């Protein structure tokens, strides 16, 4: 349900950039960590609903979910955390710490040249 808040924040950011560019936005690239509680369908639905009648109407959101990095306490290796097999990819130790979540990020906006 918090996706609506995320959608509102996105709408404001894309709208502000569109004003600056004085161009129609077509698509936006968004990324977040796998632990970010973002449901793609819910976010797409929320964004579509609130973008209606604004410059962001019809903007296509491309959402990617990034893995979380972990640091092994045994061999100091930094590896991609895999929930199905939570071990260091190098020494197979299970003593590791998770790095901070990748933030929910608006990475890039695509604009129409017309």
């Amino acid at each position: 349900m918090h996706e609506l808040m995320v959608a509102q924040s996105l709408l404001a950011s894309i709208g502000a950039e569109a004003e600056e560019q004085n161009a129609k936005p077509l698509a936006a690239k968004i990324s977040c960590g796998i632990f970010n509680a973002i449901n793609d369908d819910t976010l797409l639905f929320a964004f579509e609903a609130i973008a209606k009648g604004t410059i962001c109407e019809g903007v296509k959101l491309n959402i990617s979910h990034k893995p979380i990095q972990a640091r092994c306490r045994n061999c100091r290796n930094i590896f991609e955390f895999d929930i199905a097999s939570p071990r260091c990819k190098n020494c197979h130790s299970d003593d590791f710490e998770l790095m901070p979540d990748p933030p929910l990020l608006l990475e890039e906006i695509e604009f129409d040249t017309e």
Partner: protein
Amino acid sequence: MYKVKVGKKILSLNEEYAAKNRRFLAGHNKPCLNMISSPGSGKTAILARTITELKGRIRIGVIEGDIQTELDAERIRATGAPAVQINTAGACHLTAVQVAEALKKLPIDELDLIFIENVGNLVCPSTFELGETAKIAVLSVPEGDDKPAKYPAIFARAKALLINKVDLLEAVDFDIERAKADVLKLNRDIRIFAVSAKTGQGLEQWCDWLAERTNKAKGKQA
């Protein structure tokens, strides 16, 4: 068609307020714990018991988050502790700006420790930083021992986990060792307490841990 790199945090406004709360709490040297669980896991019951057990040792204030009603704040106030109720009116999590407002209403100088009881929800609140010192997860045994595996985010990030309602262990199929093992796979440093807010079982260890952490923070000030 052309592309513009933005690289902006979508929840930057929430994060600004979270940073503000963190500075405010650090300035007053008050630890603040953000308690997250499903609805009905017993967060308020645990808090009320904890406040009573720690009376005379640690002064606790509570920020209560619920979709509706003042019921939880009233339960906390009945213990004699100050409580501020936030009603989110439908939202599934607390935001840092709501907590900033609530912090102003607590008698901060008369407290040693602040609890934020988040809206009952195992998923959304872990995405919204509030400026807390640490997150505390609660899981009650009727919810099932598979929850840490199914909803890993909060268990991966919490400093402590309370497994509540252990007085019901015999009545439900909850394998406490499985739940613990699943949590430790994600988070080796988490402290796990098996408790019953109803009977008081296990609360002594939890309260001692809290008191020790809180006194350590106080010690830094002295």
